[in-house]
């Protein structure tokens, strides 16, 4: 998580975020986006969704609809760190499945099915592994994003080293 997000978490409250966007087109989307960043574990807790629905006078089912449509939103707590593996065609042909499997293994995550969900988090909320359809960096495939920074021409070796570095508190 970036340091600005951490700062925001202290300064801005949910009602303020809602007030800022209320009435504008797409307000719900902007509010969900901003509110998720306020959460330490980057997700939208049920109580928050309920409060947004109530304050915005939007049906609960609709808030849920938007929150589940965009893969950007998380309904479960995410890890403090994130590893995002591109599963687009170019990255796939250059071995991104091995990268995904290697990162899951290195983090001790089992039973993740990418056809059913697009993110998974370690039980200790240390790190989340996500898949995305494409980063638009196909010429540099395969690409992986670690804590917001995209690395190109990734290899299993480089990736496991990077994850180990996260564990030691190197990055961030």
């Amino acid at each position: 998580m970036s340091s600005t997000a951490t700062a925001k978490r202290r300064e801005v409250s949910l009602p303020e975020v809602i007030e800022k966007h209320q009435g504008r087109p797409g307000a719900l989307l902007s509010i969900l986006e901003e509110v998720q960043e306020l959460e330490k574990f980057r997700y939208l807790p049920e109580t928050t969704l309920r409060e947004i629905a109530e304050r915005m006078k939007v049906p609960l089912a609709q808030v849920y609809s938007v929150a589940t449509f965009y893969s950007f939103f998380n309904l479960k707590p995410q890890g403090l760190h994130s590893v995002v593996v591109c599963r687009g065609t170019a990255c796939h042909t250059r071995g991104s499945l091995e990268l995904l499997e290697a990162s899951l293994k290195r983090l001790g995550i089992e039973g993740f099915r990418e056809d059913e969900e697009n993110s998974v988090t370690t039980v200790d909320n240390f790190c989340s592994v996500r898949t995305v359809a494409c980063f638009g960096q196909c010429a540099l495939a395969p690409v992986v994003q670690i804590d917001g920074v995209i690395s190109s021409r990734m290899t299993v070796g480089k990736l496991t080293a990077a994850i180990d570095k996260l564990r030691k508190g190197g990055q961030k």
Partner: protein
Amino acid sequence: MSDKMVTIFVDGHATVVDPSRNLLEACAQAGVNVPTLCYLKDVSANASCGVCVVEVEGARSLVRSCVGRVSEGMKIATSSPRVLRARKNAVELLLANHPTDCLVCARNGSCELQSTAEKLGVRKVRFPRTRKPATIDESTDGIVRDNDKCILCGRCVAVCSEVQTVSAIQLAGRGIRTHVATFMDRGLGTSPCVQCGQCSVVCPTGAITERDETEAVWKALAQSGRTTIVQTAPAIRASLGEALGMKPGSLVTGKMVAALRRLGFDRVFDTQFAADLTIMEEGNELIRRLTQGGKLPMITSCSPGWINFIETFYPALLGHLSTCKSPQQMFGAVAKSYYAEKAGLAPESISVASIMPCTAKKHEARRPEMRGAFEYWRAKGATKPGESYYDVDWALTTRELARMVKRAGIDIESLPEEDFDDPLGRSTGAATIFGTTGGVMEAALRTVYEVVTGKALPSLDFEAVRGLEGIKKAEVDLNGTIVRVAVAHTLKNARIILDEIAAGASPYHFIEVMTCPGGCIGGGGQPVLIDLEKRLARNKAMYVEDLRLGMRKSHENASVQALYADFLGEPLGHLSHELLHTEYAPREV
């Protein structure tokens, strides 16, 4: 918006159409019924199913006719090889993820996916299933959702949010994971769902149905030593025929009674008896509120979806509701107390089934407070320890009764016309019109007018509250006091009326609210595939029955008079309070 008609060519035939029409309607006008699985006139046109495609000359791709507009000189091909192939593909793709247990589905024979696949000549499905199995949502008394059978047409979502403004369901997820969901996927039971069942009426498949309780009823019918009583809501006589293949609006009162006897019910009674009773209680409640300074406007309480709605969305206004139970519940309470006593039957040996146009009635019958007769007997020390029973044991929808009639092999059209049993089978025309929007209001006015003024009404027909307009208003002069009334149907219109009350700006004294479009005739338990024309036909049938019954005022119902003379005493009296009235509580979701 029909400033100038346009000429279009449907498969080469010139047709003059209104330019505000979509292509689907324009083709129908030209005699071609373009198939569709998601379009719902006046409610939903989201072009999601892809079945209604047609070829328009000059257009790059096929056009979905439900959202396509006509223009001057447009040339449309409705059954070119390209069109037929695209439609078949669309249905085949839907079938890939649809279960193939049609033979044992509640909608077998009334499924739009089934009939469309048949019409389009789909003979095999080339695609494998890609969707994960769904869990069945059985969290409410009234409605069962099986997302496995859902084709994501969006009709239920549209009707829930646009017509009812309840918004209990929405499409959630994306891609292959898209599904109709309640908040957090916890099921309708914890959602604001009012169980009106309109979703089950518009669902093209068996994804949303009523909770089927026919097995329990068959069992009770076969059980010796059990007295089975059936009551039928007013609207059933105008829709059971249709559910069994007769013309929409067919009035089948006598044949329905005959069919119920043949199914084995020991007593065939009429909810309309209780509707007359409701008018006696509610009419007097209104007079009391008007003359003794009670909370106004008073709002009717017959429609259980509406009760769920106000308890959920407007709990601060619950004091405006009439405390009268609905006719279904008044009937149950009277059947297991007064009638049991009169007929010398042990109340616990009686089963009451009601036939309702409604799914919310199933929930109403299971409300914990709906044990008036049991409490009545308990106060007399006539119940056993650990025993308890509801006033109404099962509320079956029109659709469930139709299934029972079919299963028993009864040919309704060839049955003789029979009469309801006495005394709880006697009713008036005022009770019949409860089945359509404006009817409760008109029935109440017929009685309240005569009770207050002591004069006979010059005309019993209150035309201002009839018809299918969303909100109707009228004024009645009661001995110099002008009483202002309003009638609303669908919860969207109820919301308008309630917002006025909440703002302190309601001009009315008395308001009728019905949950469903058209009132009970358009109820959530009624035959599926309904449209405005069918609603109008059923509506008309109600007024035909009103005239046919002869007696048209609730207070003239001799059986109701006898009930007061022999048992209840007077309207709003102590026993009425115990058996016929209830209270409401806010509902958290």
